[in-house]
């Protein structure tokens, strides 16, 4: 398995993602450019990663213009063939804008850019990215202005019925309450996957929590699960 991290103009978490995967997780990583029109020797076991940042300056809507980049057509084909795709923060927004994931990410109801550590409760027991996470509660940082997940009732019901909700925000003890909802997201949703369980989107940044020197290695459990499954 190898990872391909896509760099868009305005990406700013690409180096963090590459460093976390290459040096902390000891994985083969290739850097991909948004103007590439194909993925070099990618099989369905390989994972494309859309990193966080402000692709195209968040012009029009977060992720809207990046979703039309040349490489996105190749990523859609990879995903439709069962290949893995992970979008973190702006990457999650891009996946929603491209139609690979349902719904959209709206401006936080707090009217603030939220940059802090939060607790996440693992929800999906069947998605590769959460399947073998050991701890029920992980501490992972968020850093976003538009993280309020929105989708209609039918989609939310489908996400729940198909075990597609990856993580919800919670307290340190794993309980969900109003206090812990950092952005007004529906049902405390922090991350989801598609029906095929090969496309994953999450607002929190696991790549910022993979090295003891940063004081937090909870993110390694997320990547380990993705690599193992």
């Amino acid at each position, binding site marked *: 398995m190898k990872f391909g991290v896509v760099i868009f103009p305005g990406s700013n978490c690409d180096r963090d993602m590459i460093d976390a995967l290459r040096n902390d997780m000891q994985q083969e990583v290739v850097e991909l450019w948004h103007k590439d029109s194909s993925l070099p020797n990618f099989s369905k076991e390989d994972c494309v990663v859309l990193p966080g940042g402000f692709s195209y300056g968040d012009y*029009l*809507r977060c992720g*809207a213009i990046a979703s*039309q980049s040349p490489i996105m057509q190749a990523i859609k084909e990879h995903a439709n063939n069962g290949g893995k795709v992970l979008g973190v923060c702006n990457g999650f927004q891009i996946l*929603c*804008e491209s139609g690979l994931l349902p*719904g*959209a990410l*709206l*401006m*936080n*109801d*707090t*009217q603030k850019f939220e940059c802090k550590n939060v607790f996440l409760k693992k929800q999906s027991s069947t998605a590769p990215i959460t399947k073998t996470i050991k701890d029920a509660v992980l501490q992972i940082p968020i850093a976003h202005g538009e993280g*309020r997940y*929105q*989708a*209609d009732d039918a989609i939310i019901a489908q996400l729940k019925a198909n075990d597609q909700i990856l993580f919800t925000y919670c307290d340190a003890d794993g309980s969900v309450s109003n206090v812990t909802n950092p952005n*007004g997201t529906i049902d405390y949703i922090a991350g989801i996957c598609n029906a095929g369980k090969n496309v994953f989107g999450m607002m929190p940044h696991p790549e910022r929590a993979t090295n003891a020197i940063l004081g937090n290695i909870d993110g390694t459990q997320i990547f380990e699960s993705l690599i193992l499954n």
Partner: protein
Amino acid sequence: MSLYTAHINVMPLTELLDPQGKAVNDSLHKLGFQAIQGIRIGKHITLQIEAASAEEAKQVAEDACKKLLYNAVMEQYEIVIS
């Protein structure tokens, strides 16, 4: 062929919270505009379109909205051609 202008208003869906509108509303209240009861903030987009008719220009604008300019999950739009 003539050059038409499409005036497009993209607004957040009425049932969804508009944090930007809420923040500006609070700010205007601080300035004494107590009569203002609510603000919603969207985008105004103009397109210059070369087309054979106003109908054709409107169709181009509609297609542009559906493909990129608005997101049905969070917004609605209206087009006026001049």
